[in-house]
């Protein structure tokens, strides 16, 4: 062993020590502790003292529960597969051909991904539901269409909402294939299709699986869609958690905790499967010569544009349907046509309170997300040390823990002393920060990794203290990366439902919760109006952001 000189400055003089400590305290307090409490909770029961497997036994004995497990896996696996079927061809066409209106389809894909979680289901109910306009119209012609409630409908809605993940991950990979690789295949006598299957596909497969994993996790965690389209017979795990928690009010949520553990285990298993798969096939590419766009004209150009148009238009359709319906007259629980502003006028004070809640909470969360995000990504990229890896892992946690599970964690933990937070605005804001911070950190770290560290060294070398250098140079240069991540964090905060609905005590309702409650209560007019406001707000923020960042948004 070689002997090293001890570091000359004591640890408490290093500001980054305090930053790391702060981040760890935040995560310990609002992630590790709450999650540990529901693990303990899951092995407890009001009927017996000490630890018990009773909750898990109950879960796997009753069809009501284990059926939901099957359903959940089904509506996560099927959309992942169909999203690949939609997303990969779209990525190929968009990166390789001069598709008409390329930018528009790209923006529509992002908008569909960032839309409120229940919007797709709601629009589909309006069109094809029991009293949907298309259903009624076809009934008049004597045609009955298959039901959209249950497995098929949920899978369709989730596929159309989540396919952009596959599209974006795959097109990112396709853009970074060096064109000489494909030229080489062609040069060796390989035809177009064969080249695609033997060269292009294998190289982008790791990215496709990464996208599929995100689709899987998002679908598994989705709460709004199965809640609206599942009805009485088709329940998924997040719905169960919510129902159990509601019926166990005043209780301690033992069974809900057990279900939460099961859902997290499923996500972790999928995460590990994907990681093992990718680890064996890690093709790092840096395109010296990115592939060129193929110019096609006339009918051919129409042919390459059509699939892209259909996919992005159909997935964007719910937003149009909801916005259009919000201007229709209503008769209690159904739309009756015509044009009116009365749905908006009837909202009254509920609109303003939910609107101000939405913006107060999300913007307060943004302040924390931006400050913690800048510091944290710097620590992860530049001051990794022994604890950096742990930080990286903690950052994955919000992807693995669905919103409804985190909601339950908070209720179980912060309902009792020493820290009572339930029913406050603070707990909603905290849940936003913990769940949406990763978007900002990932985006900022990716940006920071591209930055030349000698710029900081130059500043320090010129006599500026490291801390002053950080704020004057590093943080300043990181801003574009932080900005595009923070916008995503912000929009997803605004549209957050699964966690905040469990944490809200009515007076804390945000626009999303308000819209969702109205839809569930069948007051369709207010529901549509609120959803429209939500959709337009998110879309505006995203479009402005895309304009400023010149389309460089990484989801």
């Amino acid at each position, binding site marked *: *062993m*070689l*002997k*090293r*000189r001890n*570091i*000359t*400055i004591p640890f408490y003089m290093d500001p980054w020590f305090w930053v790391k400590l702060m981040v760890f305290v935040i995560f310990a307090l609002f992630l590790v502790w709450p999650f540990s409490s529901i693990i303990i909770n899951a092995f407890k029961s009001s009927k017996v003292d000490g630890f018990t497997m009773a909750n898990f036994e109950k879960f796997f004995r009753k069809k009501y529960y284990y059926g939901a497990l099957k359903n959940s896996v089904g509506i996560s696996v099927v959309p992942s597969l169909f999203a690949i079927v939609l997303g990969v061809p779209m990525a190929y066409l968009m990166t390789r051909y001069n598709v008409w209106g390329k930018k528009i389809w790209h923006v529509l894909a992002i908008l569909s991904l960032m839309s409120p979680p229940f919007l797709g289901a709601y629009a589909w109910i309006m069109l094809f539901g029991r009293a949907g306009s298309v259903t009624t119209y076809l009934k008049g012609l004597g045609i009955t269409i298959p039901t959209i409630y249950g497995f098929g409908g949920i899978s369709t809605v989730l596929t159309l909402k989540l396919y952009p993940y596959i599209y974006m991950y795959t097109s990112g990979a396709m853009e970074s294939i060096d064109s000489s690789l494909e030229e080489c295949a062609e040069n060796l006598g390989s035809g177009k299709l064969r080249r695609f299957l033997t060269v292009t596909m294998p190289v982008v497969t790791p990215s496709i699986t990464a996208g599929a994993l995100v689709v899987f996790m998002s679908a598994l965690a989705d709460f709004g869609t199965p809640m609206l389209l599942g009805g009485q017979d088709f329940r998924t795990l997040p719905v169960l958690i919510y129902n159990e928690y509601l019926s166990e009010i005043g209780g301690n949520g033992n069974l809900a905790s057990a279900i939460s553990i099961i859902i997290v285990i499923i996500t972790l298993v999928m995460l590990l499967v994907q990681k093992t798969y990718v680890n064996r096939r890690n093709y790092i590419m840096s395109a010296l010569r990115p592939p060129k766009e193929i110019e096609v004209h006339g009918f051919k150009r129409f042919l390459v544009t059509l699939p892209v148009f259909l996919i992005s238009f159909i997935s964007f359709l719910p937003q149009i349907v909801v916005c259009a319906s919000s201007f229709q007259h209503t008769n209690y629980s159904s739309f009756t046509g015509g044009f009116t502003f009365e749905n908006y006028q009837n909202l009254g004070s509920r609109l303003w309170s939910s609107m101000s809640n939405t913006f107060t909470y999300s913007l307060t969360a943004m302040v924390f997300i931006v400050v913690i995000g800048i510091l944290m990504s710097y620590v992860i990229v530049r001051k990794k040390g022994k604890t950096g890896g742990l930080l990286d892992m903690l950052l994955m946690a919000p992807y693995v823990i669905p919103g409804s599970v985190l909601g339950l964690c908070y209720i179980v933990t912060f309902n009792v002393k020493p820290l009572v937070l339930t029913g406050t605005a603070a707990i909603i804001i905290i849940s936003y920060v913990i769940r949406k911070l990763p978007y900002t950190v990932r985006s900022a770290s990716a940006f920071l990794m591209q930055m*030349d560290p*000698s*710029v900081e*060294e*130059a*500043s*320090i*070398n*010129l*006599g*500026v*203290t*490291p801390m*002053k*250098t950080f704020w004057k*140079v590093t943080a*300043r*240069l990181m801003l574009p990366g932080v900005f595009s991540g923070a916008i995503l964090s912000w929009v997803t905060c605004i549209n957050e439902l699964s966690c905040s609905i469990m944490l809200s005590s009515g007076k804390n309702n945000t626009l999303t919760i308000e819209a969702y409650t109205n839809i569930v209560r069948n007051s369709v007019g207010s529901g549509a109006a609120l959803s429209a406001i939500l959709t337009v707000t998110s879309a505006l923020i995203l479009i402005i952001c895309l304009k400023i960042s010149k389309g460089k948004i990484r989801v």
Partner: protein
Amino acid sequence: MEKIKKGVRLEHISKIYQDPKTGKDFYAVRDTSLVIEPGSFVTLLGPSGCGKTTTLRMIAGFESPDEGEIYLGDEPINELTPNKRDTAMVFQSYALLPHYNVFDNVAYGLKLRKVPKEEIRERVMNILDLVELTGMEARMTNQLSGGQQQRVALARALVIEPSVLLFDEPLSNLDAKLRVSMRTEIRRIQQRVGITAIYVTHDQSEAMALSDQIIVMNKGVVAQMGTPQEIYYHPVDEFVADFIGEANFLKGTMVVREGEKVTLSIDGNPLVVDGRPDMQTGSQYTVVLRPEAASLADQGGMPCEVVLSCFMGSYQNYHVKVGDTLVKLEEHNPKNKRIYQVGEFCSLVFDPASVHVL
């Protein structure tokens, strides 16, 4: 710039790194001692991984030595953080602040030293004049060519009037022609200002052109320190001889000593050279022969066979075989000389005074 010039002294400096693959510790720099005279231009030269950049970064304070002490003038600086050290560095990537224009980049160090505004302006303009960038002060750095960015980086380092100027391969991102003109420029400015400069490079011609002293490093230790002439004509070992310019190594056995002169037998051919007192009859020695010091003739030297003959413009490049040893040589100004073809047998001739015995 009426500042007392300061030198740099390294005493038994070591730096230990961990190999990321094997997890084993190794010396990046090992027990290195150096004295750099005030006002001199010194180059740290060596292949990649030899410890030259680590040494420079330890002087700047970005790395702290695991053993030994670094002095700036007479002051030990191990405990000083980089921002408190009186050094300024010019980075390989220039490291200009992309959100500032040329003027603000150069003024950056002065502003944070709370120098009065008028003085900043005057000093920045003087320096920009020195590096020949007058009139460019309002440009953003991404509107400048590579050479201009390099000048801004140099100006930014010079303007704070450091005791020592550090260069970390500053020219490696420039194209070949610009590299040559910039190195003349750097040398001119360093001599104008009279500042101590330490320059890291792996390009031996750059080191030759710039330096008062060259320090050749290999595997974390100093192989040789000396003027460019000393290093070129009297390399201490095969590594230095091979790294600086081209070198041929002829192995021979010493047969006899006559005063200062010794006779070596190289492949049976006698060679009389200046010997060292410690040389023993019967021992093997290596002789360094530079390609430009040798030429080919029909007879009169060591018999050899031509294995490569190639016209390079300013010279004819030959590879010849003397026994089993391959010798490379350059026949300069070949226009009116006899050109030997591959396969020809001829004679390798050189002035014995131009070789060096290791």
